[in-house]
């Protein structure tokens, strides 16, 4: 055997050089795709929605993977600001992914892109409170993922979206199990940010599932891993949940301390709704520290802020927190007034019929002077989940009261 062939590096050097040449030639086409994507997206956005599928089908220039990527990026940016728009953008991405040329991009890459597009559509549906469509879209995503050869990072992303769906459905343990599968994938891929994000997600599922102490540990671990500059929104959300779970687990002094340390973050990065949520959190902590006057002022301000912006579910939950103060203080007249005000205000908001029924039950209990802290807590917990899950039914009685 020659010396050349006995050294693998030397043996494969010409092949690697040739591979680099081939890939390098393709880079120019990829750059062209990236540069034209924004213009193509604008064209599509300007096309009436009913004409888009036909244009996408017949005009090959729209069959571009980087256009699909850009649509998904825009969809992500719209998730919380405009959920309906997020669905629309992800749906366009799915249509485009459907027309990608497997002969040009390769079967595996095309199927992977379809999996990613469907998973984004699923998550957008979830945020828009259409959980059934979310489930179906995520199922389609998994099918494409299998056909693609199961890329690990795509798989972890699907697991993470599925976990969010399970959390919205109140299936917290399943959400945690799914994230337990995603976390090692991110760790293996040395993606600290996504690993941290998944830990935070698991912490929130755990806390909502009634384990605030575990939630605190997980969120703290997640916070130590995320890149604060990459997703400032995630940082605010993680800190907000951490403070909430600290307070919930009886560590209200510590919650207040962390809140004070985080205040500037809310002010710098926070949108108006973040600031209202901050006021709400302040009210809850003050209440649990026994500073009831301070709590009442903060909660009233938060409630009015949510009502002004038409955020019915949160306004209702703040009203229930206010009611706990009146109940503790024995201010029956105020309790009845808060209950009476809720129903007409929320009838015209984003609160669906089943949730309204829960609020009516609260009013009846207030009228009959039969409100308990347990009932207020159950309605509040229900509203938190029912916002994204309109099919969820309210149970008036506590679990341990059922026969």
């Amino acid at each position, binding site marked *: 055997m020659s010396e050349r062939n006995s050294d693998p590096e030397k043996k494969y050097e010409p*092949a690697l050089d040739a*591979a680099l040449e081939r890939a390098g030639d393709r880079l120019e086409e990829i*750059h062209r795709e990236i540069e034209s994507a924004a213009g193509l997206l604008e064209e599509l956005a300007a096309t009436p929605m009913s004409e888009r599928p036909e244009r996408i089908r017949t005009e090959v220039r729209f069959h571009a993977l980087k256009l699909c990527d850009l649509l998904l990026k825009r969809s992500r940016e719209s998730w919380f600001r405009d959920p309906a728009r997020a669905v629309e953008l992800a749906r366009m991405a799915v249509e485009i992914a459907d027309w990608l040329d497997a002969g040009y991009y*390769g079967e595996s890459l095309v199927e992977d892109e379809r999996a990613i597009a469907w998973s984004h559509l699923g998550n957008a549906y979830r945020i828009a409170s259409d959980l059934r469509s979310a489930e179906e879209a995520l199922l389609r995503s998994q099918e494409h993922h299998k056909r693609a*050869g199961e890329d690990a990072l795509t798989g972890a992303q699907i697991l993470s979206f599925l976990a969010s769906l399970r959390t919205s459905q109140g299936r917290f343990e399943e959400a945690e199990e799914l994230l337990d599968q995603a976390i090692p994938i991110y760790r293996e891929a040395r993606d600290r940010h996504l690993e941290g994000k998944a830990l935070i997600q698991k912490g929130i599922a755990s806390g909502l599932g009634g384990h605030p102490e575990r939630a605190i540990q997980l969120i703290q671990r997640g916070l130590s891993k995320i890149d604060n500059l990459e997703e400032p929104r995630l940082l605010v959300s993680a800190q907000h949940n951490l403070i909430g779970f600290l307070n919930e687990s009886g560590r209200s002094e510590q919650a207040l301390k962390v809140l004070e340390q985080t205040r500037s973050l809310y002010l710098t990065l926070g949108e108006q709704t973040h600031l209202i949520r901050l006021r709400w959190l302040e009210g809850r902590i003050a209440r649990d520290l026994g500073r009831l006057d301070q709590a009442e002022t903060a909660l009233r301000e938060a409630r009015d802020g949510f009502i002004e912006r038409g955020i019915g579910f949160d306004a209702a939950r703040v009203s229930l927190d206010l009611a706990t103060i009146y109940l503790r203080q024995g201010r029956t007249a105020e309790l009845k007034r808060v209950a009476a005000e809720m129903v007409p205000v929320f009838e015209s908001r984003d609160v669906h019929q089943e949730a309204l029924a829960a609020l009516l039950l609260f009013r009846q209990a207030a009228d009959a002077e039969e409100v308990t802290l347990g009932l207020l807590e159950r309605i509040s917990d229900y509203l938190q989940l029912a916002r994204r899950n309109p099919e969820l039914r309210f149970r008036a009685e506590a679990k341990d009261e059922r026969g």
Partner: protein
Amino acid sequence: MDMPSSGKPTRADLRWLVDRLKPKIARLFERHGVSGKESEMRVAAALIRLSYQWDRVRDREKWLLTELQDALSLRQEETSKEPRDE
């Protein structure tokens, strides 16, 4: 360690990546008895795929190596499944 992230990979980015991984890639191909032509095809395909997913992948060295390892494992599985003449 990884290259600075950018949405648009360049020829220099790909060269840097392959140069760093050259000994590992060569040993991997050698172990699997991959021909020069096949190795060119496999590395080019992986680099093109990585270029499309450039901003999604944080650790590109690890990704590229894993992509090649997985493809060769699959190839080995398929070869061992093929019926052989006795």
